[in-house]
């Protein structure tokens, strides 16, 4: 294993790690901020992939697919939040786990109904379809590097939005109130609901899915494996650390 291969392997792991971070960050928003554990998170990954396939074959270009896909994702996130998750805020985690477990089965079959079970591919846009020659035998696809850059940009953007902007403050406040003082300020709580209804978490995640879609070439129908990545990561990665007094409440 010469040094060049070692460097390439590190690049591989970094790139795949960033990809997993993107998936996990979506779940952190849903779980950390909204306090809902969503086992069906992997299904959004699948929906994003199939959305990319359908839109690219419809519009002919990936960039158009992404432009069209993000509003669709926002709408889907908002709809799901209104239809199902709004009822879940008050329920305990067991019921959230079971409801989202049912969702996995539903998304799986809807995909099979709407798009069928065959294997599909989506073409990489031309300006990204090159490879850089690393060693005399091995070259590295530019598309994977593009994805890593997108992941880093989104990570920074996410951090900035959550920590620095008013919207971020609202989201964080929405979070503290639901778990914070029993006498939650009702007004802020309502605005908190509306913020979630915008499905901020889901929309941002859906956009990233479409980019990653080509990295995967084939839209694999069963991609629920990723939810455990965030689960293994323990508590919410981005959401603010809870005040220790919190622990005392019976």
């Amino acid at each position, binding site marked *: 294993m010469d040094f060049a291969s070692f460097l390439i392997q590190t690049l591989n792991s970094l790139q795949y790690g960033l990809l997993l971070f993107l998936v996990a960050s979506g779940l952190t928003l849903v779980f950390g901020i909204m306090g809902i554990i969503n086992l069906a998170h992997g299904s959004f990954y699948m929906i994003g992939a199939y959305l990319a396939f359908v839109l690219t074959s419809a519009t002919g270009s990936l960039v158009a697919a992404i432009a069209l896909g993000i509003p669709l994702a926002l709408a889907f996130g908002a709809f799901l939040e209104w239809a199902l998750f709004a009822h879940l805020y008050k329920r305990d985690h067991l019921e959230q786990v079971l409801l989202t477990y049912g969702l996995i089965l539903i998304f799986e079959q809807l995909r099979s109904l709407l798009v069928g079970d065959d294997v599909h591919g989506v073409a990489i846009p031309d300006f990204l379809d090159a490879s850089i020659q690393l060693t005399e035998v091995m070259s590295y696809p530019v598309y994977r590097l593009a994805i890593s850059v997108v992941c880093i940009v989104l990570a920074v953007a996410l951090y900035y939005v959550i920590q620095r902007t008013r919207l971020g403050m609202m989201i964080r406040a929405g979070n503290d109130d639901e778990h914070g003082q029993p006498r939650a300020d009702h007004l802020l709580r309502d605005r908190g609901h509306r913020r979630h209804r915008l499905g901020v978490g889901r929309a941002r995640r859906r956009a990233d899915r479409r980019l990653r879609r080509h990295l995967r070439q084939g839209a694999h129908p069963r991609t629920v494996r990723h939810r455990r990545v965030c689960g293994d990561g323990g508590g919410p990665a981005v959401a603010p650390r809870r*005040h*220790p*007094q919190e622990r*005392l409440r*019976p």
Partner: protein
Amino acid sequence: MSATTKNEVLLQADKLTRRFGGLVANQDISVSLERQMIHVLLGPNGAGKSTCINMLSGDLPPSEGRIHFMGKDITGLSAAQRSQVGIGRSYQRTNIFPQFTVLESVRLAAQSRRQQPWRIFSKAMEQRWALEKARACIEEAGLGKRVDWVSGVLSHGEQRQLEIAMVLATDAQVLLLDEPLAGMGSEESASMVEVLKRLRQTRGILLVEHDMDAVFAVADMITVMVNGQLLECGPPAQIKASVAVQQAYLGTEDSFHV
């Protein structure tokens, strides 16, 4: 430090300190409790009273300082272990078994003294000693008329009485009561004060309270805490007269009548 120590010192806390990151909730708090004494922790909101009682009951490990119970150092013991040695605890926000009846709640508290979990084929309801203990404690706490009621539907005051009954059922020598009179009507708190006086004959009671009249009517010893620090400790007369207490705690109230 206090009147002639005729009674046995049950609970002795020395220089208890608790820090949450930068915030110092309690700084060098020393409190002692004797049998047949009602010792009241007085202080404005956020003075660190609850933190102190939590440290004494084992719900919260202290950052520094030692706690002794009947001479033994119990600083390292958990809440459950402290209950086993004889420290009972009631909570500021009612902390009971809403689905259980009053009898079952207090029976479960009584059962904690002889748990015998390995006797999985014996029927809990046939444990004579636990049922008798439970009924006695329910009477003692003044809940005689509510024995078969479901705890969740009791009035706020009655639920506070249920907490007292449960603590009694654990044969606790020391009762740590967090605002037992909070949210009670006048005659309910009057009857609770009577209960506390009755309990004082055989036990030591340390309670956190706001209700001025009740406090001065029943306390043998008062400790005033402000901003996590011990301002003054002494009998009610000394505290009433103390200028420091009036400024720090009672604000600029002109007259202070008993």
